[in-house]
């Protein structure tokens, strides 16, 4: 599975470029590169449903980013400015807590099963009951639409709430000057 490591290295480089580059449009393109690499990795780890959704969502995200940047500015003026006290403090504190977090994560990852050997305790039941219980051949669709349908209802609620928020913020009728 060497290609997974190559894609992850590519994603880390692209993510770093996205955070450090001065042109915001280029940063958004780098973010898109990370997103499409995630979609390809979903295909490599046998998750075709996720890859389809990731590609659609990625395209929509990039379109929204570019629309916002076209209406505003595409130069990040904060890159290359002299570092101020709060900024230095934020970098130092981030490094400290990132180090602590990494130590905690390395300890926690010892408990996970090794890569490629997932334990299937709950999933084996879903796989056994999937086709006879729900009649759906795609087990991921069975889980989100039948076994965990309330979860999907909550997802739809969050999505529509955010749409209401976007519409309320973006419309200019009735806005005081």
């Amino acid at each position, binding site marked *: 599975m060497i290609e997974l490591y190559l894609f992850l290295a590519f994603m880390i480089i692209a993510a770093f470029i996205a955070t450090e580059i001065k042109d*915001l449009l280029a940063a958004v393109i780098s973010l898109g590169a990370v997103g499409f690499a995630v979609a390809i990795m979903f295909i490599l780890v046998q998750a075709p449903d996720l890859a389809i959704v990731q590609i659609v969502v990625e395209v*929509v995200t990039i379109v929204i980013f570019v629309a916002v940047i076209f209406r505003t500015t595409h130069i990040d003026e904060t890159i290359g400015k002299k570092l101020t006290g709060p900024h230095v403090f934020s970098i130092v504190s981030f490094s400290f807590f990132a180090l602590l977090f990494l130590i905690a994560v390395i300890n926690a990852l010892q408990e996970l099963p090794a890569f490629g050997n997932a334990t299937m305790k709950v999933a084996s039941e879903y796989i056994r009951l999937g086709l006879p219980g729900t009649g759906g051949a795609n087990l991921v669709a069975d889980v989100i639409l039948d076994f965990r349908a309330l979860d999907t209802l909550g997802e739809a609620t969050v999505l529509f709430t955010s749409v209401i928020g976007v519409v309320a913020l973006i419309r200019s009728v009735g806005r005081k000057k």
Partner: protein
Amino acid sequence: MIIFLSCIILFLIGLYAIVTKRNLIKIVIGFALIEYAINLLFALVGFRRGMLAPIITRVDMAHKFVDPIPQALVLTAIVIALGTTALMLTVALRIYSRYKTFDIAEIRKLKG
């Protein structure tokens, strides 16, 4: 193990953007990076070597699938990530139309 740690490093790059960057668009990019990292970590945890995607193509086939539950959870999370990103960008657009800058230090100085 190393592949999980690489996901965590991607997560930390996103967190770095959120905590230390002063441009609002860069902060939103940091949130998007965190979402990718966590979604990818979940999909990788559910992976089993040499197994198939969880779609039943023949009734009598032996059940050799990757774990479908992380995939179902991540499917929900991807769509929610789109909603939150769109909302954050709209707020950033409104802030820009009022203060004419994305720099959070300048916005704090202006205080309208």
